């Protein structure tokens, strides 16, 4: 029982928060502001709680597995959620369904937690759906906006479709191996055609969630359609969680098929980076722009994953951590601006520096980090991903990846240029930033600058992943 509490603590905390919110809702309810601040506190608690009593073990007849690294990954996610709750405060205060929003978001988070520590295809599937369906509902949260509902529709349909494919793959896997628990599958794999087919089906499901080319097409539309809070949640939190479990599945379950999936990763990584960059090149809407840029980033994550050793795990976790900060900072600034001026186009950002130096610097910092320019953490993140990928001495692969950094730099600089250099007659007006947002932005900025230079972060992750 005690073991149950410790091992599942993060899930339990989240569940507790969900139920609390539920009671508040069915009770007499609360004012948005106070509720929001309450939620923020709770999320902070949740985040901090993640640091304690982390131990290794499994539950429910080996269906649920956790260890310090997984706990760390969960922490990253809770941190992200906390930051979102701060960053999008202005927007959240306006929505009339604040409690529902957080219930949905947190249940999605719960799903991700379970997914990360799932050790069995069944629970994995359940968690995956739990992590997806609420997000679709959230995507629709701008109830009166056409685009929002369109995005939500696209998301729910295509994710349902992909989970159909996934399930078919799982069924085939079950048919050939007779089990759905990860370790046993790994033991049973013999690389027959059916299993490869099954693997491809499974793989595509991950590819869909990570929006790897060519399974990425829903991404941009959904990102653009849904409210920024949701977009950032999608692009950071769910991406991160899927990346984590993806690694586990590949490394633990499909280790016998590694040469198959290595080749697959290489092909898809290149495709993803190139296509993502090429699309990002000519985007006008900042959300859509960030969507494609995040697709390109995923390409880099794949480069890291391809290394198939603890180095890869470390690099990916480290990168996701940095990615949380950088991307959330970018989205945060975007949301502030769109909240106060309704402007979401890059051209409308022209001359931003004149009026809002603080936002400009944060955004620039975030973009540099995404582009992988020192001294920001993104530089280290990208570099370590490439290092991990380079372990197999596939120079052309690394070269392609590195050259892609040029294109990405080009479009990130487009935004920087708009902010700092271009003239504009009616720039975004001076914005009064609310304290919570400012705090969040500062946290992000600090994270972007420090995480790279504070090398012990990386070393800590390394020790965690090295134990596996």
């Amino acid at each position: 029982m005690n073991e149950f509490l410790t091992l599942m603590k993060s899930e339990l905390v989240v569940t507790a928060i969900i139920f609390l919110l539920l009671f508040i809702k069915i009770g007499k309810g609360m004012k948005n502001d106070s509720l929001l601040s309450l939620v923020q506190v709770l999320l902070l608690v949740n985040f901090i709680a993640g640091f304690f009593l982390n131990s290794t073990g499994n539950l429910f007849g080996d269906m649920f597995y956790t260890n310090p690294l997984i706990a760390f990954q969960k922490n990253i996610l809770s941190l992200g959620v906390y930051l979102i709750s701060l960053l999008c405060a202005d927007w959240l205060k306006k929505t009339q369904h604040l409690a529902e929003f957080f219930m949905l978001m947190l249940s999605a988070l719960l799903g991700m937690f379970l997914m990360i520590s799932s050790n069995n295809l069944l629970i994995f599937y359940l968690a995956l759906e739990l992590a997806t369906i609420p997000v679709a509902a959230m995507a629709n949260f701008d109830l009166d906006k056409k685009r929002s509902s369109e995005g939500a529709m696209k998301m729910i349909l295509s994710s349902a479709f992909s989970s159909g494919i996934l399930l078919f793959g799982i069924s085939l896997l079950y048919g050939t191996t007779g089990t759905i628990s990860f370790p046993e599958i790994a033991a049973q794999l013999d690389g027959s055609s059916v299993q490869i087919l099954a693997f491809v089906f499974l793989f595509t499901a991950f590819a869909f969630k990570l929006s790897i080319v060519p399974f990425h097409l829903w991404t941009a539309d959904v990102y653009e359609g849904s409210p920024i809070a949701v977009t950032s949640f999608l692009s950071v939190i769910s991406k991160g969680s899927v990346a984590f479990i993806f690694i586990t599945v590949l490394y633990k379950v499909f280790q016998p098929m590694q040469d198959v999936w290595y080749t697959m990763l290489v092909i898809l990584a290149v495709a993803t980076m190139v296509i993502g960059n090429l699309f990002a090149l000519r985007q006008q809407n900042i959300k859509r722009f960030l969507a494609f840029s995040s697709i390109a980033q995923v390409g880099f994550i794949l480069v890291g994953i391809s290394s198939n050793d603890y180095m890869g795990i470390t690099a990916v976790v480290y990168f996701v951590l940095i990615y949380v900060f950088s991307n959330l900072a970018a989205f945060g600034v975007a949301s502030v601006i769109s909240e106060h001026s309704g402007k979401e186009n890059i051209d409308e950002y022209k001359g931003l520096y004149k009026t809002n130096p603080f936002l400009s610097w944060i955004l620039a910092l975030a973009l540099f980090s995404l582009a992988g320019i020192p001294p920001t953490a993104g530089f280290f993140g990208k570099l370590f991903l490439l290092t991990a990928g380079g372990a197999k001495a596939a120079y052309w692969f690394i070269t392609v990846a590195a050259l892609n950094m040029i294109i990405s730099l080009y479009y990130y600089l487009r935004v920087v240029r708009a902010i700092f250099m271009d003239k504009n007659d009616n720039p975004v007006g001076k914005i009064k930033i609310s304290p919570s947002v400012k705090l969040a932005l500062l946290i992000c900025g600090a994270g972007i600058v420090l995480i790279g230079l504070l090398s012990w972060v990386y070393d800590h992750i390394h020790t965690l992943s090295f134990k596996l």
Partner: protein
Amino acid sequence: MPNATTIALIPLLPLAGFLLLGLFGRKYLKSSSGLIGTALLLTSTILALYTAYEYFFVYGKVNGAYQQFIPLQLTWLEFSKGVSIDMGLLLDPISVMMLVVVSFISLMVHIYSLGYMKGEERFATYYSFLGLFTFSMLGLVLASNIFQIYIFWELVGVSSFLLIGYYYDKPSAVAASKKAFIVTRFADLGFLIGILILSFSSGTLDFTTLIQRLTSPESNEVKTAVVSTFLGASALTWGAALVFIGGAGKSAMFPLHIWLPDAMEGPTPVSALIHAATMVVAGVYLVARLFPVFALTTPAVLEIIGWVGAISAIIAAVIACTQTDIKRILAYSTMSQIGYMMFALGVSKYGGEAGLGYTASMFHLFTHAMFKALLFLGAGAVIHYIHSNDMRDMGGLRKYLPVTHITFLIACLAIAGVPPFAGFFSKEEILLAAYQNNMAIYWIALITSGLTAFYMFRLYFNIFWSKPHEVHGEKHGEGGFVMMLPLVLLAVGAAAAGFIPFGEFVSSDGKALVSHFHLEFSIAPVGLGLAGIFAALWLYKKQNDKPQKLAAALGGLYNAAYHKFYIDEIYFFITKKVLFNLIGRPAAWFDRNIVDGMVNLTGNTTQAVSEGIKKIQSGKVQQYAIYFLAGVIVLATLFIYVLR
């Protein structure tokens, strides 16, 4: 061993003058700068004369030859073991001789300029530049290391550039200074590569070692260098030839002479110092410095030197006969005289009686410095008086400029080779040397000496006789004491220098060389000289139309000579048309459009591609599903059928 500091001071004092006047002159020392510069130079002249005395008479000969001293040698930049640029002081007969010449003439010019340049806007700058030049020239003369000579070679080049361009707001002056610098620079390229070759094949940059290694045929340096050939000539031959190109450029030898006439844009005293007496003979000095190498190891190059000298001499003489700008005439005569010195070296051998040409050449260098400087300063006085360079504006000035007239006449007689003036002796020796070794060159030289006499007296008569001079307005006199003194001193030199027993002091191998005159030999040149003089007398004594008739009679030849045989035009064509239009413009175009175009092209293609593939993101969720399935199928087939 002479005292290093004394000798070091000789160049360093003018340098001090340069720095002092250059930094503070224009503000603080505007008026006194002239005196400061002159004083400094006077000191170094005295030191130079003292050094010469010491060298020739105190240390004197050791077993029949003057020794060579290197009182000072500092490593300036070491390239590799044994190969290093040293800053040293080398004392041997020619360097001491040059030391005297340079410092003396420079002193004369300094004094003269006190009057000539009075009231100039950039008086101080002028003197600082003079200081810089004197320093560089003295450093060149004293160089003990072939790279050191190159360094000072460049420095005299730049100071000549600065002084030619002294009147920087006159476009012609700017053009002339650029031309002078670039042409000599081109020659220096040859010099540089020559140095590289010589230093590589001898494994040193130090003159004494280099000469000693390259002149002993059994030394393995020579063997290897001779073996390695390029275009049929041995490396050494190439090296020597290239070095000579450098010398030819500085000494305005055909065909690199085009800068010299234009260089007359500079102030006249400067022309006297740089473009008559000292810098332009640097080439001769360089050849003399490396003479053993030329004479013993690469006689072929020496042959070339002889011919280049001879051709330059006669061409310059012919052109000089047709010019009307008095300074240009003097410039061409300078070129022709340097041609004399060159071919004198060219026809010489190393050592003993056969080395007469060497001595003669140095002797002529010495005397020429005297009378040519005198001529220029005299011309300067005339120009100062008339405010024009053109012969046709002059005439009948002998009453108004008596001192100038006399001294100028002396100089003309000297250069025309009329005994007993200085030019006579040196020219005799040169002709003798030519006569002994190379008849063809001898004849050319003979004709040239005739022409020389003719055009010099054409100049003389046109300035001082010819049409009477009408006085308009009150005329300031001859420019006062400071301008007359140098004229007189130089006139004395021009008259008397010939009696110095030069062979005693300077000879190819340092041993004394007694020069003896055969009266019957002297008849031809002197006769020709007098003939030239009388021709000039007949044509130009009184104003008349004989010259025009003569010109018409000569027709084509006259025109060609008048247009300097169109050599400038050829150069203009090469630089403007070929260099700029055929190389420069294409290069610039290529860079902007091809190389840079490539870069832009990549950028634009990326843009285009991203525009082209946007259709994939059609917004139709079902199409997305199709792509999805396509992905699945492709991957499945790929990994089930293709890759296993």
